[in-house]
């Protein structure tokens, strides 16, 4: 096999591995295994979901609220995410009591970068699409669709999420709350 | 038929001609694709316009000269 061929195989294998990881993550969330999900996050995770403005052509740099400067839907680290999980697990977080039925779909996975290499990847940047279906109580239903930009890092032999940027394709948020994870 | 001009692409300072045969210099482009603010340089049909500043509508613009 050529060197290029080896590299291609390594990329395919890595992509497969990353996809498996993302599906596993979705599985944990949908099965409400929140404590296990938290273990997939690095201690220094950045979890950011900007709001989106309608702006004029040529001014698209103002479309998203800025991380670390503006009000965002989410702009936080692990401590707040842990608190969100603890809140759900109190059993008296009325917005999630009874628990919502949630289904995470992940697709269009694109590996953007693997460093130092696909063969020995220790960090991976990827883009994907998400479709989160939430149904709660009786007929209350939300569909949240958008893009995600993740950075995964290998820690102790396993992948962890080090950065997540969530781009929801909505302006006015059509869901009454964001009690779930993207 | 004259080419359809996208007003958004007209730079400030550019010279334009109108369908009435006037020429004008763009002084401010709001980049809404509908109007530009321009100063008349020549206006054979209405010489009083020369030197005045006005809004010129997209469909009244014939050509971008520079």
């Amino acid at each position, binding site marked *: 096999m050529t060197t290029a061929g080896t590299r291609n195989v390594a990329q395919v294998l890595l992509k497969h591995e990353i996809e498996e990881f993302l599906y596993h993550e979705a599985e944990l969330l949908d099965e409400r295994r929140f404590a296990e999900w938290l273990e997939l996050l690095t201690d220094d995770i950045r979890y950011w979901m900007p709001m989106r*403005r309608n702006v004029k052509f040529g001014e698209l740099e103002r479309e998203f609220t800025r991380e670390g400067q503006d009000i965002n839907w989410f702009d936080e680290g692990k401590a707040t995410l842990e*608190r969100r999980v603890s*809140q759900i697990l109190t059993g*008296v977080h009325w*917005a999630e009591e009874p628990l919502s039925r949630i289904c995470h779909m992940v697709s269009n996975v694109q590996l953007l970068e693997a460093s130092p290499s696909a063969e020995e990847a220790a960090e991976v940047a990827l883009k994907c699409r998400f479709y989160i279906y939430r149904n709660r109580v009786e007929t209350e239903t939300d569909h949240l669709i958008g893009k995600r930009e993740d950075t995964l890092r290998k820690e102790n032999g396993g992948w962890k999420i080090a950065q997540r940027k969530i781009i929801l394709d909505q302006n006015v948020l059509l*869901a*009454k709350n964001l009690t779930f994870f993207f | 038929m004259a080419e359809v001009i996208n007003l958004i692409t007209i730079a400030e300072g550019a010279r334009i001609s109108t369908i009435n045969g006037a020429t004008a210099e763009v002084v*401010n482009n709001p980049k809404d694709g509908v109007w530009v603010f321009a100063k008349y340089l020549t206006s054979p049909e209405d010489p009083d316009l020369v030197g005045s500043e006005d809004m010129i509508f997209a469909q009244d613009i014939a050509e971008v000269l520079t």
Partner: protein
Amino acid sequence: MSNSHANGSHRANGHSIADMVDLASGTVSREIFVNEDIYAQEQEQLFARAWLFVGHESQIPKPGDFFVSCMGEESVILCRDRESQIHVFLNSCTHRGMKVCRYDEGNTPVFSCPYHGWSFATDGKLAGVPYFKDAYKGELDKSQWGLIEVPQLRNYKGTVWATWDKDAPSFEEYLGGYRTYLDFLLDTWDGAGGETEVFGGIEKWVIPCNWKFPSENFVGDRYHNISHRSVDLVGAGPSGSGRRDTQERVGATALDFSFPERGHGTISFLRPNDGPIPSYQHSKIVSDYFAHCENERRKNYGKWSRFIPGPGTVFPNFSYLPRQPRTIAVWHPRSPESHEAWRWFLVDKNAPAEVKEFLRKYYISYSGPAGLTEQDDMENWNYAHNASRGAIARRYPYNYQMGMGHDAPSFDADGLELPGLVRNVTVAKAAEQNQRGFYSRWADFLRASNWDELASWRNGHSNGAKFHNGAAARAGSAL
């Protein structure tokens, strides 16, 4: 309104307003939350006449800056013209109605309509009309067809308010004595009179319930603490526990303030006259800053520094938290069943960067759709509304009787002039005086045919007087 005076009594959709808002028995009909016709009357009688919050001056600092906001159901443009004058326009072309601005914010010399091309300057004037000479023969009176502008606008301490009613009293008169309490939201933390600004990014989201649920909640619902049990358990406050720093409330007198003749209401705590209370203990820079502000506050506010402001609502749909977090919400009606919540977050302009950063994060995690606290409010409002829609449910009114008919214990205001109906709820823990005041005013708006009737305080007999113990009710009203 067409049917409100049909037979001399005030009726909405066949229901008498007096029956629906029955202050003698302390009940409010569910109809006013779920009924389509009453909703339509609110748009005419209330939202077209009241003073409404449009935005913050710091959102439009430069000439040409604009922010698209709402007044009730309607889209409006808040903008600063070339002369730096602030305007509020209906966001609808005067030719055939097209929304002239579909951007959320930006800077522009003109608003050009994408339908036929009419173009409006930032002062609202109709500046460009395609084929003005050829098609209109130059005869169109452009001066009559500018953007529709609010007849009254007021920039109050950086907050921009407007009303569609030219006969409405001035904004200050509309506030009345409530101004004292609103100032605690709008003045800088140290009380030194500096400027405040809003963070970039206005939260906008849809809440499936009538807009009055959040308005009455913020007007002074001390009773709903159990809603927030989960956040109190996990702790999200600026010192790590609870949802706020509550040390400052220890030993304080809990006071509710209602303005039934105006509809506004707020709750507060009056602290004992001792030293500053540690707060914002998350980081030293932040806690030092707040300690500094508290000290300044003592100097600048004197006796008023004992006053710890709490949530409030300026009638009808402007609600706020003045302290922790510091935020403004407007509940824009969309239908009887749903409203759009918009939330601005305020900060002192000259606060250190570290403090702004800390507050920004605290604000996001407290309020709005991702806020650990507000999420549970919305669930309650959502399903309260949901369960009130049925033909049977509508027959049974909501209960607002808490504290009715009982005088509250008097307290020592230590010489502070506290405007409004003041109710000491330190022992009672909660009362529904403020909600009764809110709905009393709501009923006034649905009944009244003009501002002469609505400005009842001018002729000395407040509408509130009929259900509280009159002017003597300073420290212990029975409302």
